């Protein structure tokens, strides 16, 4: 007898069908992964087992412990949520209520579903926090969500979900928002607790590494349709469906050429500090300094890629902005021998042309109210104002062709469209075209693929490698993803807490890491 039995489930939002005839089942204590890219319907499918989605029309059947969820009255559902089925969401900061302490929120869940009240509930909450490995849990229980680190918040979320010993735990991308180094810990914790309590786990993820390591069975979804399901080893070793094969082979291949000689960017002793205001009256008279980057040295040759790797808050993005001359930095950053601070207006203008940038989030990196022609053509207006309308348009079309952005082989129909008409991967191509149209020598890539789906990631990285060889570009690649570095970089710098902990060629750093920190990062990536 299975614990959860989903039969022919279809989900509509208005007239749009987002999930089409999905069936799967889950036995008590079993671990099932629901895999797919964004918009594949995996989250909607999982959350509909609790009927947590408003405005959705559900058809088919969802049976939990032999009871039909779709026919349950609202009160019975409320009882079931949290007690029988619990959910851990992707982003713990928004899943926890910011105005209550963590302990209060766990205790609330206990009071709702168990006979425990008041002080008993509170001490049980503290015990639950201890079980998920939060040190000093009595003090931490009195902390507000913002006072905890990302990892601790996610642990608190897990404590809350598991406090009532549910029979099924739905984990929706539980580690995607966390730093690589703690992802493994959190998943290991989840697995340990699951095994102890004999819970069933429904893991929603896009990361096949996690699936391989933590689940027994896997179901693959594409655009609302379940294309394949089976035992994890079978599916990953011998994928039957084309889409699954594409997912399994989405690890990017290395296709970079050898770097050239000489130096195009030279950085010595780079240091970036921010002033931060001290709280209270002190802040009126003095301000503290926060050092985001210090003691950074590197050289970059033409055609070379320097991978800068580190977790969030390590200062890698600030370093990128300093190289771009967008934040003030001390020390010496020379691009073709010219320093940002020494450059006059004309020289700065020339420097701007030499070094360009592609940002992480293709949603926010394109102004939503400009057409593609305006966005891509902006650099030409600034740096080559002598071009007339027709010449400019020709260059824009060439740039779009370069990044492979065409419709039926032509780029013309795209010129007067707006960014919202494009998918994430296409927008990233537009951002690359905007950077390349002024013919820069150096491009800073700030997490260029981390907002994209895995299969798109691969395409974008291949495009970047191709463009590098075509135009002898140098890349400064800022990322937290060791796979991306493996595929693209010639040399690697590992950053932690504003400093470089390790630097060297890709071979040296990845195969023979010297510091423990680098080892953790590499292990987490290979999981």
């Amino acid at each position: 007898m299975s614990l959860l039995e989903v039969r022919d489930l279809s989900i509509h939002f208005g007239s749009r069908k987002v999930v089409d005839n999905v069936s799967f089942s889950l036995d008590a204590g079993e671990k099932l992964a629901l895999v797919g890219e964004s918009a594949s319907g995996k989250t909607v499918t999982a959350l509909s087992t609790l009927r947590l989605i408003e405005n959705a029309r559900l058809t088919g059947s969802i049976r939990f412990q032999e009871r039909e969820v779709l026919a349950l009255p609202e009160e019975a559902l409320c009882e079931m949520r949290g007690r029988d089925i619990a959910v851990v969401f992707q982003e713990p900061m928004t899943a926890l209520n910011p105005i209550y302490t963590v302990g209060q929120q766990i205790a609330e869940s206990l009071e709702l579903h168990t006979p425990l009240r008041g002080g008993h509930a509170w001490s049980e909450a503290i015990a639950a926090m201890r079980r998920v490995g939060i040190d000093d849990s009595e003090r931490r229980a009195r902390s507000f969500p913002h006072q905890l680190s990302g990892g601790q918040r996610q642990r608190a979320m897990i404590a809350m979900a598991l406090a009532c010993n549910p029979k099924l735990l739905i984990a929706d991308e539980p580690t995607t928002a966390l730093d690589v180094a703690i992802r493994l810990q959190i998943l290991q914790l989840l697995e340990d607790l699951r095994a102890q309590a004999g819970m069933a786990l429904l893991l929603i993820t896009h990361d096949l590494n996690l699936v391989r390591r933590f689940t027994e069975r896997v179901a693959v979804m594409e655009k609302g349709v379940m294309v394949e399901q089976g035992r994890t080893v079978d599916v990953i070793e011998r994928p039957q469906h084309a889409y699954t094969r594409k997912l399994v082979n989405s690890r990017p291949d290395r296709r970079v050429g050898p770097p050239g000689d000489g130096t195009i960017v030279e950085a010595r002793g780079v240091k970036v500090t921010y002033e931060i205001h001290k709280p209270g009256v002190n802040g009126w008279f003095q301000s503290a300094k926060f050092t985001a980057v210090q003691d950074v040295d590197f050289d970059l040759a033409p055609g070379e890629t320097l991978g800068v790797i580190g977790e969030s808050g390590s200062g890698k993005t600030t370093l990128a902005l300093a190289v771009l001359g967008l934040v003030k930095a001390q020390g010496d950053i020379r691009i073709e021998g010219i320093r940002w601070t020494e450059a006059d207006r004309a020289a700065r203008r020339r420097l701007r042309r030499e070094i360009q940038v592609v940002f992480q989030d293709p949603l926010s990196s394109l102004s939503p109210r400009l057409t593609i022609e305006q966005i891509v053509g902006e650099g030409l207006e600034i740096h080559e104002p002598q071009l007339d309308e027709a010449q400019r348009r020709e260059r824009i079309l060439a740039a779009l062709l370069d990044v492979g952005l065409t419709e039926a082989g032509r780029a013309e129909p795209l010129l007067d469209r707006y960014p919202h008409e494009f998918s994430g991967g296409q927008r990233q191509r537009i951002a690359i075209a905007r950077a390349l149209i002024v013919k820069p020598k150096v491009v800073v890539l700030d997490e260029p693929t981390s907002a994209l789906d895995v299969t798109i990631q691969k395409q974008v990285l291949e495009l970047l490698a191709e463009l590098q060889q075509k135009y002898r570009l140098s890349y400064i690649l800022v990322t937290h993803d060791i796979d991306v570095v493996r595929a693209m970089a010639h040399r690697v710098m590992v950053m932690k807490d504003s400093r470089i902990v390790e630097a060297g060629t890709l071979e040296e750093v990845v195969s023979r890491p010297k510091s423990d920190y680098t080892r953790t990062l590499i292990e987490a990536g290979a999981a």
Partner: protein
Amino acid sequence: MSAILATSPPTHIPLHASPGRRAWRRFRANRLGYASLIVFGFLFAVSLFAEVLSNDRPLVVRYEGHWYFPVVQTLPETTFGGDFPTPTDYLDPFIREQFAKPGNFALYPLNRYHYTTINYFAKSPSPARPDRENVLGTDDRGRDLLARLAYGFRLSVLFAFLVTVASTAFGILYGALQGYFASWTDIGMERFKEIWGAMPVLYMLIIFSSLFSPSFWLLVILLSVFGWLGIAAYVRAEFLKNRTLDYVRAARALGQSNWKIIHRHILPNSLTPVVTLVPFEMAGAVGALTSLDFLGLGVPPGTPSLGELLQQGKDNLDAWWISLSTFGVLVVTLLLLILIGDALRDALDPRKVLEAESGEAKPGGTPAAPELIVKATQ
């Protein structure tokens, strides 16, 4: 990568349009708001021609073989066979008789009174109830109420329009500078705004209206000078948010000038709350002018004003037609503005935008959790 553009899902709003145009389409889809805009626009356009529609001078006169255009000419009474070289009173029964003679004629406006017209030949004492002569009756000085309401409406809307344009323009400029340059510029300008906002507007108005003789333009200036604070706060917040977005960084990395970044990149993306606020600002300005006039601090005496009419209504409670009709005009004006504002807000609300474009516009339905809709529409 040839078939890179997936076919877009069928929606009633074509994707291939600028965000501004799509907002306009959503606005039009709101029938109540769109109808309000049309009615308001019509009323305002009509009121701009008040001199032709409600005037005590005929539009065209043919008198003893000559053509006259009293609307634009001032003619002495002697022109039409009167005794005195004073400007003609066209309501005078003698003049009317002259025009009624064979060969002569006069084309009068729809309503034969100007807002200043005092009908010396009225049959009933003022304030006179509505009758055939004065459709809505007269005020306590015998002036036609319909004429005063029409001109008063026009004045109120023009006033509101000027105040809104001036305070919005200044608020955008101030908020933009604050938000774009941030840090010390922002801190300094924010303190100034706080000091400015702490000034008691009503007392300032009382003081100013006793220092200078109150006039329309003085009021426009005074209300604009205090009206920009709210707009500036919204624009500042939008700029603070947008200046850190990657498309602004990308423009800076391209070497784009500050001025161009402000007006080309950030400004168009920061105007949503401003556009939403405009109708409400106008409604507020109409209300402000009315209350100042009601208190006697507003436009100079004799000017057609809704507030002054309300004041009369209060003084002449038995003349119900004064307060009732003025109240009606005010309610309709404010209601139309607020309905327009409401529709505009819905058209620009990002949550409703997603809902409308995922093809499930359900008026009154609870919007689903935004993150789930986002997933569904991607």
